[in-house]
């Protein structure tokens, strides 16, 4: 079952904040977040594990709400380099393949 991402697209000015959500109708073991710039490979950002805590760095962090089976990616004080398409990938059990959402296109303007 493909996770649902929202919003589909967001446009920011440099320095603004954004939240991207990823929801599943099934219980999850883990949620991965990747960023893909146009014409490039997806790049791993972070993983949230069942029972784990919020992770990330100062400006990009994520959380995983097990009750809601929802993960959120937080981008604060956005930079131009944050532009790209963000994908969440979910796994229902340890060792299983990732099922990706359709992506959220983030554009950061000067």
């Amino acid at each position, binding site marked *: 079952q*493909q996770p649902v991402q929202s919003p589909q697209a967001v446009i920011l000015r440099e320095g603004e904040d954004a939240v991207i959500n990823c929801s599943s109708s099934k219980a999850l073991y*883990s949620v*991965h977040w*990747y960023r893909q710039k146009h*014409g*490039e*490979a*997806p*790049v*791993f950002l*972070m*993983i949230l594990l069942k029972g784990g805590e919020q992770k990330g760095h100062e400006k990009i962090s994520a959380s995983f709400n097990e009750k809601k089976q929802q993960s959120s990616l937080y981008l604060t004080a956005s930079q131009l380099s944050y532009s790209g398409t963000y*994908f969440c*990938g979910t*796994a229902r059990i*340890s*060792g*299983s*393949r*990732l*099922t*990706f*959402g*359709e*992506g959220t296109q983030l554009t950061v303007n000067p």
Partner: protein
Amino acid sequence: DAGVTQSPTHLIKTRGQQVTLRCSPKSGHDTVSWYQQALGQGPQFIFQYYEEEERQRGNFPDRFSGHQFPNYSSELNVNALLLGDSALYLCASSLGLDIGLNGYTFGSGTRLTVV
């Protein structure tokens, strides 16, 4: 340290033809997964290879097959190409069957166009 290498980068084929895509995983990785990414969509899982065997398979027809070699590199073969097979094919490598805390390392992909 080389990342994931895929070849060729672009390919144009005619309907009904066969194609082979190649992937060399990141140094130190032994598991290769293949994904198909249609334009504007998220990657869809095709299959995973570990220890030269197909370990998991997504919802793709038998026209899609693969192979893993002793040096961990992998090939994706698609027979009887259809227009709908046009997509970006991504190779992702990892260590062991569990993706682990470092996630996948993806290659830049092969853009396949079927005409």
